[in-house]
């Protein structure tokens, strides 16, 4: 690439990166400011104090929330991986009547607004006596049309000869699934896992509904608890909370970047 062209690209890259990351940087800066500084609308804090962070952890059992969030997100992730991969496996490697219809049915669930189903689901959870439990927070999300779709697309790229070879070797269906399909589809599984983990980590309304106390609550509720309605909000603390909440997911994203990208594209293409 020629030199002037390089300059143009670097300029675009830097400029976009700045714009895109500005909100995060801004939140980061505010998290170090005092109430007065924030109201004056500064960008750089006068001194970097960790007061807001101390206060966040003081005010809320944030560690507990983080751990809960982690357990719930990991739980949903694992659940989704199992349920979706099994469904996708059936769609790809077992031919049976009505397969396309059931698949269409699965896909159609992507279009149902979650808000429309939330209240009845809440009652269901209550009937099951699952409020305040991890299963109440996780199980409803195990079946995921997007995930099934993504994995199905990937499974389709696996040569069917692998299936046949293992049939000749005498492998059972499940053994084939377990010992061949899953290991071979690692990238897609990582992708779906990351997707499931992130979306679960970011959930707010559902965890709020099905929990009554701090026992299994997740960190997004904590974020909400930092903001007040009638009484003035302390923005510095809220932003500290925001930073604490996004750091684990950002870290996860940075680490899994490559894998994620690979897996996502496989799903995107027919």
């Amino acid at each position, binding site marked *: 690439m020629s030199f002037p062209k390089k300059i143009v690209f670097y300029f675009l890259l830097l400029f976009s990166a700045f714009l895109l990351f500005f909100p995060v940087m801004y939140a980061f800066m505010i998290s170090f400011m005092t109430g007065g500084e924030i109201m004056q609308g500064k960008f750089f804090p006068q001194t970097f104090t960790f007061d807001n962070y101390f206060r966040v952890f003081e005010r809320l059992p944030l560690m507990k929330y983080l751990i809960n969030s982690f357990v719930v997100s990991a739980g949903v992730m694992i659940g989704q991986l199992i349920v979706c991969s099994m469904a996708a496996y059936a769609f790809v490697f077992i031919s049976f009547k009505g397969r396309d219809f059931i698949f269409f049915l699965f896909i159609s669930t992507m279009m149902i607004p979650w808000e429309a189903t939330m209240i009845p689901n809440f009652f269901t959870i*209550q009937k099951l006596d699952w409020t*305040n439990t991890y299963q109440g927070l996780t199980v409803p999300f195990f079946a995921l049309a997007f995930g099934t779709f993504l994995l199905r697309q990937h499974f389709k790229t696996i040569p069917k000869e692998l299936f046949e070879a293992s049939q000749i070797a005498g492998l059972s269906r499940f053994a084939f699934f377990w010992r061949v399909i899953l290991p071979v589809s690692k990238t897609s599984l990582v992708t779906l896992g990351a997707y499931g983990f992130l979306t679960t980590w970011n959930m707010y309304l559902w965890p709020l509904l099905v929990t009554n106390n701090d026992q299994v609550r997740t960190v997004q509720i904590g974020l909400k608890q930092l903001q007040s*309605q009638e009484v003035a909000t302390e923005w510095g603390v809220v932003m500290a909370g925001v930073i604490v909440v996004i750091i684990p997911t950002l870290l996860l994203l940075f680490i899994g970047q490559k894998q994620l990208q690979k897996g996502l594209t496989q799903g995107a293409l027919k």
Partner: protein
Amino acid sequence: ACSNNESKPEPSNPNDEEEGTAESPGKVEINFWHAMSGAGQEALDSIVSDFNSSQDKYTVNAEFQGSYEESLTKLRSVGGTKDAPAITQVFEVGTKFMIDSGYIEPMQSFIDKDNYDLSQLEENILNYYRVDGKLYSMPFNSSTPVMIYNKDAFKEAGLDPEKPPQTFNEVKAAAEKLTKSGEQYGFSMLTYGWFFEQLLATQGGLYVNEENGRAGDATEAVFNGEEGLRVFNFLNDMNKAGTFGNYGTNWDDIRAAFQTGKVAMYMDSSAGVAAAVNNSPFEVGVAFIPYADDIERQGVAIGGASLWMSKGIAEEEQEAAWEFMKYLTTPEVQAKWHIGTGYFAINPAAYDEDIVKAEWEKYPQFKVTVDQLQQTKPSVATQGALISVFPESRQQIVTALENLYQGADPQEVLDQAAEGSNRAIEIANKTKK
């Protein structure tokens, strides 16, 4: 959707028991659902833990349940069952719903049983929650609206900072003077139905028929009468004149505007006074809310939330809840609450506590809020309206205000809001069992 309310009579959820194991076995444990976040939660948590350590019979678990709407949604699903929390905090507009719901035990029964002396509490607050002479819930976080103004700006504009405007016309005139085009608006008000209700009440205007819903189920909204129109005209005039700043529906936005000198006068909750004084780089004054010129000032209705006791839970839990509520009303606790949050002390004796005195020393503005409350003339208007679909109706008012600010006709938007509320009321009455 409530068929599940009669669910299995199992002991309440396992986590409570887990928590209980930490305590000595004889203790009665109750849950307290609240919607206090931010500073309110901080103060509340400390009161609850004080209570828990002040005696060894009861343990209260204060549990945040999201915003008022969210927590009410949850209550609806467990109300009347064993799973219901012993105490629930419900915002004032949910009062009618709670009374009708059948989930709750009226406070009055305990007051009678215990011979509790109600007179020690602030009459004007109790009035709101008293229906047919029965107190249904225990007031908790109560606030009234006040007008907060920028004394420095007053001086600058040649106004007397110690004599804030009182009537609509005075406010308009002052706003005119205070407005500096592009830099500072004279007056602002949060786009929130509560303030409209207050400006209505202080004129003695009613919100709904049937004596503001206190003589029976309201069937029609009447806020679009002359009092309501006055309020809308008041706002509309200033908006047209460019002296009114619109800062939307978010409490923090309007406060920030005031604190950064963008607005010279605005309506706030009494609970916001302390922050306004603290965060503003200028001197802050607090005044009564304005009233229509040719009319006598009636005073304000309270806002905020109260605590409700559940029916259908174990007796000793109700007992515990009652004990906790009594504890809450003690002057010491109320003093602490008042200072921590800016909400009123429901027990006026609290204002004599030293800590309050010290605080008032620092913030003489607090006194104005209490005065306003105590000078209120009790009537159905200042008691506040009772309707089950209040949240929806408030939303109608918000929309009406927003449209007003966009230049719509005051009477028209008001009528639309009334119409919308009527439909909601109608449906609610139709489906009421």
